[in-house]
């Protein structure tokens, strides 16, 4: 039997880079604030912890891949993030990489 810890570790490694791509892609589609983005990610079974997502969003913002505006319509002010033009260019690059990996996997299955 496979050790569950071992599986979890490999899964985490495989997923690591996909989280930022998922955030950029979802926010390019519809700008959103942190907690809602968490729900949207978990709805497409890309579950991520809040204490990972919020710092990640801030880092992507510092890197110029996201922009944000304070939404003060509610009682609690929220940062609403949207993907910047740079972020959109990065999505295209990363998506192309992902396609390449995916077709490489399919090639391996055929051989």
């Amino acid at each position, binding site marked *: 039997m496979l050790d569950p810890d071992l599986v979890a570790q490999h899964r985490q490694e495989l997923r690591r880079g996909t989280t930022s791509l998922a955030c950029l892609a979802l926010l390019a589609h519809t700008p959103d604030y942190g*907690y809602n983005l968490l729900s949207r990610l978990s709805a497409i079974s890309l579950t991520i*912890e809040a*204490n*990972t997502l919020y*710092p990640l969003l801030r*880092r992507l913002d510092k890197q110029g891949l996201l922009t944000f505006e304070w939404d003060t319509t509610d009682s*609690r002010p929220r*940062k609403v993030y949207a993907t910047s033009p740079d972020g959109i260019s990065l999505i295209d690059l990363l998506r192309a990489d992902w396609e390449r990996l995916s077709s490489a996997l399919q090639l391996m299955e055929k051989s």
Partner: protein
Amino acid sequence: MTLTDRYIAAAAAKLPEDQRAEVSAGLREAIGDAIDARLDEGLDNGFADAERSALNAMGDPEALAATYSERPLVLIGPDLFLKWKRLTVLLLWIVVPIIAVVIPLAGYLDGDSWGTIVGSTIGGCITVAVHLVFWVTLIFAVLERTGVGAADLSDKWTVDDLKETPDPRVPAGDTIGAAVTLVITAIFLIWQQVYPWAHTDTGEGLPLLNPALWSFILPALLVVMAVELVLVIARQVRGWWTPADAWATLAINVASVVLVAIPVAQHALLNRELFAHIGWPDAATTVTLDQIEWITLAAIVAINITDVVQGFRKARRATRSPG
């Protein structure tokens, strides 16, 4: 102050000044939304419970602050670790042996007792080693935090950095050197007795070493040296070191050190009559015969330790190498 306020204050305290306000506002949003979501789901028992579970899920505020400010949560990262390890080991090998020789020598010349010398040597070595490791580690921790990488400290590793694998065969030079040293020492031991440097007024010879030692110590030493000569030649014939060789070297070295240490401890290695006759050391000299004996013993111990260490290293290398 609510739990949330305390949590945010704890995280903010670990952030650089210019990021505090912004990250605090972000955290307030994150925690508030998490609490609301938990209340909506109705999993918790009221607000206080929801707040507790939301904050527990956020985890240690200091870890969260480190994630926000992208500060490393390691003292020395994988990039610098090997540089740190190699430098620390190298410096320990250079500095601690020097200290281990200098402190007892100074203590001995000061006329300290044996217990004091052993104590201050062990204490001094530990102190120096701890200091050395601490300061090297501190420097590397600072480098880690100032963004200096391994590439800034030295050139990239290439195959030229591979260590030469030493030939496991016993070099003829080693054997000849060891054999010549043994033979010359043996000749010296006999020669200084048979052809003494000085004679008494009655024409009796005064050898350098105490003639009473011929009753046991010196013949035993010659036997030990003969055994060592046989081992050295046998090793050359065989061609490589074996673990048994290393252990035999250890036994021989211990035996010779003990044989020299016994007369030294009894103040009877050197021939007191000879020195009384030639009148040295006199009132003008600060060295005593005892001191010369102890320094001779110390030198022999140092040579023997090196010999034994080398023996074990060569034996290990020979058993490891495939050839």
